[in-house]
């Protein structure tokens, strides 16, 4: 179990370092999916929002 913990520990620290470097953040918002973007693009609002009230609710 100790050996396993060494592996888990080293892997966790490595992953954490990479996540920090790459700018990953679980509390952060992610980019919108492609199809959703497309819908927004087709909304014809002149902006990307479309029906933002619905989004917000």
């Amino acid at each position, binding site marked *: *179990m100790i050996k396993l913990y060494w592996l888990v520990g080293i892997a*966790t620290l490595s992953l954490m370092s990479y996540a920090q470097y790459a700018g990953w953040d679980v509390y952060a918002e992610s980019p919108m999916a492609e199809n959703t*973007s497309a819908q927004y693009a087709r909304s014809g609002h002149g902006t990307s929002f479309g029906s933002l009230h619905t989004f917000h609710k």
Partner: protein
Amino acid sequence: MHVAKCPSCGARVEFRSAGALLAVCGHCRATLLKRDLDVENLGKMAEVLEDGSTLQVRSEGRYSGASFVVLGRIQLQYGAGFWNEWYIEFADGRTGWLSEGSGLFYVTFPITVEEPLPAFADLQPGQSLRLNGWGFTVTNLETARCIAGEGELPFRVGAGYEVPTVDLRTGPRFATIDYSDAPPLVYLGETVEAADLALNNLREERAWSGKGDTAVREVKCTHCGGPLTLHGKAVESIACPYCGSVLDATHPQLAIISRFEGGMPPGMCLQLGARGKLFDKEFDVLGCLVREVLVENEPYRWFEYLLYDGNNEFRWLTEYDGHWNWVKPAAQMPSKLPARQARYQGKTFRGFAVAQATVSFAAGEFYWRIHAGESCRTADFIDPPLVLSEETMANEITWSVGEYLEPEVVSRAFQLAQMPARKGVAPNQPSPYKGVHGRMWKLFGLFSLAAFLIQLYFVLVADNKEVFRYGAVFEPNEAERMVVSDSFELQGRPTNLAIRQNTDVNNSWIGVSLLLVAEDGKLKFPAAREIAYYHGNDEDGEWTEGKPSDEVTFEQVPPGKYHLEALVEMPADARQPVRNVFTVHRDVPAWSNWLLAQLFLLLLPLFALWKRISFESKRWSESDFSGESA
């Protein structure tokens, strides 16, 4: 040295010790009392019985840095057998006594005590007694009878006189009170391991030895005629495995002294006479006791195997539900503490169980007179892998210490192909998670520190730079609640980005739907936020709720040209416009990865902790004091 001529046979008799008053002639066993110029013949002394002791007159040893020589002995018989008191003289002229029992030696010296001594009849095992300020516990009461003597002795003694004796112990100290004289004679000393006495000039013939020894006698059971073996002269009783009869091994016709009902129950793993190597010593299995306790009318049975190394060392191997213990007499008297605890050799043991244990069957040879149905009160205290066992009989208290043995150790030692399967958790079974658990928490500390240092590095090197600022005013009428910012450029590697909003929301709220839009059309980052800020005064004073600002972070935002779009929702009754300043910060320190890493690193230590607690719960579920376990 005083030399005399034996008046009976004319042989030369030496009084090597100035303190010796009596000597037994080595040729004719005449008991000679030393006078000023000659000796008085008091008559013949009975022959000493052959026993398993390797000591003899002229044996030598060392105690507390001083060498001694054995001058003589008296042999005393009691209900369960007999023992020797060896009279020893040190190089500096001091004299004392050396006795043996249960694999331990006791060295004592005569003392005078200040305290008045209670009458022999008023004493009982477990009673406390003070001797020259030391608090002792009465451990044994016997009325023994002197049956023989040899060599030189410091007092006039003859076979047949009764010796009521009391043994007392405290820690390593040992005391004996001899009530055969008035006032009683008190001897004070301590228990000593055989190895610490550096004994030499011992008897060459070993009373006990194993296979291949010509001293092993084949005998037949007096009751059923079953074949039995008799390994040594010190065997006091033999229990027939076929019919349960217990024979007096010292009787010429092996008289039956007791009888067990029934037979040997299944589960006896070690055969009588088997030899095994444990702790670098070879031991023979001499006997096997089956002991049981009744708990709610349910018998719980275990096996105790008596082992002997052929050199004054008896040990026990006990087996219950596949769990093994290596047991020897406690070298020191443990002390009992409050809250059902005991202390022994610097360790504190926790009370585990008390029971009335009975010997339900026995087979083989024993160094005491075993009786069917022998019963005693047992109390077990544990400090895994050790168990301290106190056994209280009518006239005696004994303590033994057992160490948990892995079954593989026993099977390897005795080359056993089959072993009983281990069931449950034994009282003193070491937890496989105890050490692991501790080491894992240490490792957690190490990893946690490393994670913090890594995090600190990223915090220090993060740009956290404001790359864009945009102010907007949102009017209550719906048409003017949406804004699109100017464009701004993000540079560098893909990394996170934080949008902070500072508003003048006052006792109101706004809902902001944000969109970070990449102008190449490939990516959009949406976020819905609510900013609410209320404040006021009530009977408790000033209060606030919420705040007029907000921050949202987008992860992995690639470089490029972007703009912000924001749509604001307001309460239906909003009358005032809301001013909102958006600031965009690139490469901000993020703590979520560090926090996640901490949580992930905690998983295995918590699992090990759970396993440990679950193991201990199983252990203590079998205890009489399970409700008191921590």
